[in-house]
């Protein structure tokens, strides 16, 4: 996830790239937002405003869609995003202990970003790899069969 600060012109360029990839139609809104989210790590307000004018739909609609789906971030995230699966199979397989250890190690609760902007910690629902529960994702990397002892080592891998 990139955290470099971009100016508004670059943000709008990113928005245009996404809209042009999928065409400026209302039903393409979600793929467009997904592309922006992937490129910028989140969906800034200025991007929403630009998409609104290109697709000719109210900005409130864009905001309501962007804020509805869990995978869209409307605020800037840390350099790395940790998604801990909080669903039942992970929970009963030792996920609770791993979750508590993560909280302690990071010093933040789910939904928060560390003060040094390194980590954003969120919980996510089932990732569908329940055979290796408990599971967490750090950016695009999936870690399965987690134990609390592994947490410091895994976190240390990331700059």
């Amino acid at each position, binding site marked *: 996830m990139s955290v470099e600060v971009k100016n508004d012109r670059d943000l709008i360029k990113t928005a245009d790239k996404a809209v042009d990839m999928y065409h400026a*139609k*209302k*039903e*393409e*809104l*979600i*793929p467009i*937002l*997904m592309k922006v989210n992937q490129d910028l790590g989140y969906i800034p307000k200025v991007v929403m405003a630009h998409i609104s004018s290109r697709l000719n739909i109210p900005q409130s*609609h864009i905001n*309501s*869609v962007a804020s*509805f*789906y*869990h*995978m*869209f971030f409307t605020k800037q995230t840390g350099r790395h995003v940790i998604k801990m699966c*909080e*669903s*039942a*199979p*992970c*929970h*009963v*397989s030792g996920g*609770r*202990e791993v979750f*508590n*250890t993560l909280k*302690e*190690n990071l010093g933040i609760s789910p939904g928060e970003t560390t003060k040094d902007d390194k980590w954003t910690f969120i919980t*996510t*629902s*089932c*990732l*569908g*790899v*329940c*055979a*290796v*529960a408990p599971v967490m994702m750090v950016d695009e*990397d*999936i*870690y*399965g*069969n987690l*134990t*609390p*002892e592994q947490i410091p080592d895994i976190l240390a891998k990331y700059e």
Partner: protein
Amino acid sequence: MAYFRSHILVCNDPECLEKGSMEILDLLKKEITKQGLEDEVQVLDTPRIGACAQGPEIMVYPEGHHYIQLEKNNIPFLVEEQFLKGRPVTKWFAPEIPEGAQELREPTTKEVRVVLRNCGKIDPENIEEYIAEDGYQALAQVLTDSNPDEVIQIVKDSGLRGRGGAGFPTGVKWGFTHDAIGDQKYVVCNADEGDPGAFMNRAVLEGDPHSVVEGMIIAAYAIGASQGYIYCRAEYPIAVKTVKIAINQAKNYGLIGEKIFGSEFSFDLEVRQGAGAFVCGEETALIASIEGRRGEPRPRPPFPAVSGLFGKPTNINNVESYANIPQIILRGPEWFAGMGTEKSKGTKTFALAGDVNKTGLIEVPFGITLREIIFDIGGGIKNGRKYKAIQTGGPMGGCLPEQYLDLPVDYEKLTEAGSIMGSGGMVVMDDETCMVDIARFFLEFIQDESCGKCVPCRVGTKRMLEILTRICNGEGKDGDIELLENLCMEIREDSLCGLGKGAPNPVVSTLRFFRDEYEAHIYNKECPAKVCRALINYEIDPEKCVGCTLCARNCPVEAISGERKETHVIDPDICIRCGICKQVCNYEAVLVT
């Protein structure tokens, strides 16, 4: 198709990728070429081999040799021995009863693989391998020999019921959509498998995507649709990629496009991704999502069959429902109806997760008992612990205790028992599980995923969660149970969609079978299973502690004090009940009271 005498399948699941499976694949290719075997031995990557805890792993066919925990320096020796000299290196084989988790094992005698028949066996990115397994023959048959009404009748006769959870007769649904009036019709595949613990659809999409594609084309022909969408959750990026490849290949072969197999029938198919919303598994919310809107369900009627995507007649079915269709056509509806129970025909995939020895995917005919699933196929409870309950049907399902172990699994029986079939997730729980915590846990999930549109679900589940959280924190009050029961009834009756209506199920079923645990939490401030952090204490047994200091060194909050070789003590005011001390102690000296 080039014919190779041997295939090596290298697992590319995330867990194996992380362990360097692609480097192993490259090395294998290099060594095979070095030995001059590149025209005889094919190296492919594939998902779904299985022993995820022991990657990198490969399967060698046709022998079926399963190598695990391979290292880079193993490869030259392995290639020389196995492929040049014909001597498998047995010391690197997976043990007969593998430890750890596998997603898809060799089927036991109680299993019947229909939907999963090709998974792990064919290269999902090669349409020719699907064709070699009778792929697209059903479509050819249907387009040349049958009219749409006949196809619908075949599906009706098979008794296939929607595998997404509602269990509505698929043939009847196709009939409604066929009869509906519209200048444009759609077929949609619900691949938004969000039930925690369910990954059956993912296995099919990643391992045998053409079975779904073929099923959809046949459905489109039957109902008169010219356009289809596969709505796949974004949490499954490999599935999305594999399905897109399959669709492209099908297009290249003329199986999707204009005038398929020279008939008058044309059809196009696209993939749409979700964006992380469990509720989009509900059909009207899914439709809203494809239309670029918030995934909020709407009241029905009108049903999607009459007015669905973009207001047109739409047939929505689950991945597994479509994946059954080609086999039903080829082998006949009587074959399918010959399996299962009176009202639940055919087979069902289930994902076994939780405290069972062999987690992973199974496919069994309806009518098999829970006991057979958990103990015969699942290998019983992990670590020799005792069985407590099984949650079937995902977060809107119920928990069934010991007295239901001999329940034959079918739609009606599960509903009678207070649970549901759902999409097929089965979470097994042992005696270290707190059922109040589990109910709270599922409710937290539901609260998070509630779309917010209707008050009973949005507010009702929040209130229930508040009560359950208080109970788990030792702040339960007299009257809480009655209040919960009241709320459950209201929410069930008045919610707009299946998510809300099913939200009370975990609470209702745990109250029904484990009421004593609720009462212990509320009246005795005790958690019998020793799970709820506010109600337990971690203590060190002075008889067993040898003062090795391991626990103190590992405690994240420095709550443990003690000198070397002297009994250690945990300060209950600092202790956060994370359980690390108990995990690291080699003397079983940490007690939970």
